[in-house]
């Protein structure tokens, strides 16, 4: 599907949107969303945060035309949500996988593919790729009614991607998934974001949002409470954190003295960082997989489907990226820094290569403005190679946007 992303037009625009649920007698009863105004720009991963009942899902349903706003204006790609044509550019994963229990995974994806009028061959190819990607190819002929919640969730995600959407709406995408699945989903969101997809992520799992989102808005009681870039919202400006290899007690004391002498401030906390339980869990499961321990659940997820920008090109990016990560993270970095550390030239190269457009640039991973000028030439060369490898799939978008 060749589509163009209008750079100037926000993907989502909500202006003063209200939604009040009514009772049987049409009397207004519950204000679910109150005066919500927000904008999601092309290419960004936007987080919709809030506790249960804060209006996240209602907002999403209004975006999809499943509910109508009581007041205000909504536009997706500059058009009304009721416009059926814009749905061709949207992928949606609801908060629960509302799939047909009697269909198997392949039939499910085929059905939803039909609704996008994908030709049979394309449908079959994409179905295979997505099943491979979500790790359910070996269970493709089992009725979804027999699936675990996590497996159904994966099929839910696959159906959301069948049309190679420009705009992906994910409502609680990690609910019901094990930590490994959660990690895979987060990786997928990051990768899709890198391939220029606009993503609206609704969740109350704060860690998930923090890991993948560029910008967030926080809702409570249907009202917007905060909005902005994560880096700005979360930065603690009156504290400084230094991370280094293990230090001796004497060195720590010296630093403490130095800080006291130079800044007249006390060092509040000195500790050794712990690896997270998620990292630990994932390493255990991956060991089991390497040992081919049998399971009826989902297999390890595969690479991003080729039609979504994965495949060979994705592999190249991942290989280069892991090489870059290795060079950057020669020192163990387990604690999450408040601000992303300055990254080496190869990481910057990869970031720029894997991002289809030069903007918007997520603040948390923004290349430093003082990047060495000598890196410019290799960037161009690698970009050409990648474009060739990717079969020039993303080039129309890029050209349209540039």
């Amino acid at each position, binding site marked *: 599907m060749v589509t163009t992303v209008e750079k100037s037009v926000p993907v989502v625009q909500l202006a003063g949107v209200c939604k009040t649920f*009514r*009772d049987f007698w049409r009397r207004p009863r519950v204000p679910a969303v109150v005066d919500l105004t927000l904008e999601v720009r092309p290419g960004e991963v936007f987080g919709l945060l809030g506790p249960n009942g804060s209006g996240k899902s209602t907002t999403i349903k209004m975006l999809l035309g*499943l509910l109508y706003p009581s007041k205000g204006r909504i536009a997706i790609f500059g058009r009304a949500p009721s416009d059926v044509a814009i749905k061709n550019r949207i992928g949606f994963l609801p908060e629960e996988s509302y799939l047909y229990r009697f269909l198997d995974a392949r039939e499910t994806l085929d059905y939803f593919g039909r609704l*996008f009028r994908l030709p049979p061959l394309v449908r079959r190819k994409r179905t295979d790729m997505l099943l491979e990607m979500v790790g359910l190819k070996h269970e493709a002929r089992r009725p979804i009614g027999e699936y675990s919640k996590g497996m159904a969730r994966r099929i839910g995600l696959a159906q959301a991607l069948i049309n190679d959407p420009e705009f992906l709406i994910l409502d609680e995408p990690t609910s019901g998934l094990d930590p490994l699945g959660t990690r895979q989903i987060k990786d997928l969101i990051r990768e899709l974001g890198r391939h220029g997809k606009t993503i609206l992520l609704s969740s109350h799992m704060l860690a998930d949002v923090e890991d993948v989102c560029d910008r967030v808005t926080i809702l409570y009681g249907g009202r917007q409470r905060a909005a902005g870039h994560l880096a700005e919202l979360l930065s603690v400006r009156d504290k400084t954190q230094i991370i280094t290899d293990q230090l001796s007690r004497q060195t720590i004391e010296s630093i403490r003295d130095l800080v006291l002498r130079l800044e007249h401030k006390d060092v509040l906390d000195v500790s050794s960082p712990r690896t997270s339980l998620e990292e630990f869990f994932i390493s255990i499961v991956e060991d089991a997989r390497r040992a081919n321990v049998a399971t009826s659940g989902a297999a390890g997820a595969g690479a991003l489907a080729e039609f979504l920008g994965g495949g060979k090109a994705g592999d190249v990016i991942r290989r280069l990226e892991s090489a870059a990560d290795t060079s950057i993270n020669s020192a163990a970095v387990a604690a999450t820094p408040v601000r992303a550390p300055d990254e080496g030239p190869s990481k910057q190269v990869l970031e720029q290569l894997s991002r289809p457009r030069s903007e918007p640039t997520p603040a948390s991973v923004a290349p430093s403005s003082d990047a060495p000028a000598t890196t410019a030439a290799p960037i161009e060369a690698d970009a050409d190679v990648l474009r060739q490898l990717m079969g020039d799939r993303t080039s129309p978008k890029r050209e349209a946007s540039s």
Partner: protein
Amino acid sequence: MSVASVGVLKERPRRVRRALSAVPRAFRAVINLSPLGRTNVGAVALHVVAEGVRMKIALVFLGLLAMIVLALPFSIKGDGSLTGAVQSYLSFSLSFTGFFLGVLTIFLSRSISDELVHRQSFLLFSKPLARWQYIVGKWAGMTIFNFVFLAFSFLCIYGMMHVILRTKPPVEDSYTSGLTPTSKVDIERLAERKALIGDGTEPTQSADRLRLFTDVLTARHSTMFKVPDFTAVAEEEFEQRLREGFYDAATEPVDRAKEIERLKGKHEARWRIIPVFGQRVFEFENILCDRSPGNFIQLRYRAELYDYPPDEIFRSMWVVGDAGKGATQYVMLPRHIVGRFHTIKVPADCVAPDGTLSVLFSNVNPYADPNWFETPEPMFYNTLEITRDGVKCLFTVGSFEGNLLRLFVLMLCKLMFLSAIGVLMTSVFSYPVACLAAFVLYALAGLRSFMHESLEQFDKYDEPVTATMSAFFNAISSGEGGKASESFQTLAAEFISGGLRLIFKVVPDFSYFDGVETLVNGENVSLVWVLQGVGELVVLQTACILGLSILLFYRREVSETSF
């Protein structure tokens, strides 16, 4: 139980499921080839089929249907004859097929409300699927489902009917041949035809089988006789009664038109009663049959006698054809069992070239006449009544297969209408309510003519509703309990009858479009009738109902939450 046997048990339902999924796959393959397969309507329709063949209730219904269609031929008896067995089989199996698929259609329509309740609609309407495509797709899916299973049932019924023909021996009944081509009027011509017609006095072994092919496995056009016009007689009688002061004692003024109508009815009823030695001429028009030699027409009649003869055989004489109009005249002397429909076969040249046919019926027993028969039979004196459809003229216009095909279309039209009703109900109400409402409408459509007739009793309330209401309130205000109760009853009756009349205007008459009996009687399920069914049930009513469904569903919030 061992682990291996558990595995086998788990594997078995999967195999069944796989086998069942072959059905939608076959559908998919067929629909993919059609233009429908490339549309969203086609996608939704296919999904309905896939759902339908996996619904447990659908499997139960289809199993029952298969049992009836496939097992009935081996257990059915009918009246003991081959013809009766085939007629009973066709009647039962076709009626059950229509009924089961009708009920199944209503169950199948639950998919819309299910998708709303189980929220698959969230996914569906986040895709480029317009509301009208969804509604039409659901209806189309149900129609495809019905088409396939109806076609399959019809093929099975047709096949099993041939099994009956091959396995059940014909039973001879000396009275069922029904034709005695013995006549002193045109004995020579009849002698020529004898070989073709068969002789009732010497029944051949295949008479039962022959009757099956001439009376059941055929498509005959039927024409009713023209009832004489008794208007003039009725008017004359009314005037005479008026002159004689017959109505002077009446408490209410006599309505002339109504009274004349009543008197007409009386004369017609009298005309239908034929006493001993009485005669009646039945005139038929538009008998557009092939008059060439070797072709026949049939007279179908039922002898309803006031007093049954001891041997339950009714003997009579029929003179068929009007020689004055250029037709050949035949005399038929049938002997038939009383109270049943019988057919008299007459050479087609008894029909006049202008397509008219005159039949003179004489309530005499020719077999009692010693001039005609050497061994006369006893004479019984019977008065009989010919009902409105008591005598019909039938002539072949097509084949049984064509008739079956047209009946298939007629039944499909009803199922298409029912699918639309199901779609409308489930797109507005939740499943149990929708199901109930659809069933009520299905029952009303089936019983419409009967209900309509029973509504006649409400006709006595001629006063306008406002008058009845004011009478009711006046009675209450003046404290007249008895009058108030009476007015209330009248009011309730008016509301009920008014509501039912309104419903009957909307609901089609399924019994009118029920062609099973027509087919079983070997009568023609005419193309005009089928086209009327298509026009009325599909083009007009189904389209209107689907339009209404789309209208109601168009602005519906599919994720609606009410508190």
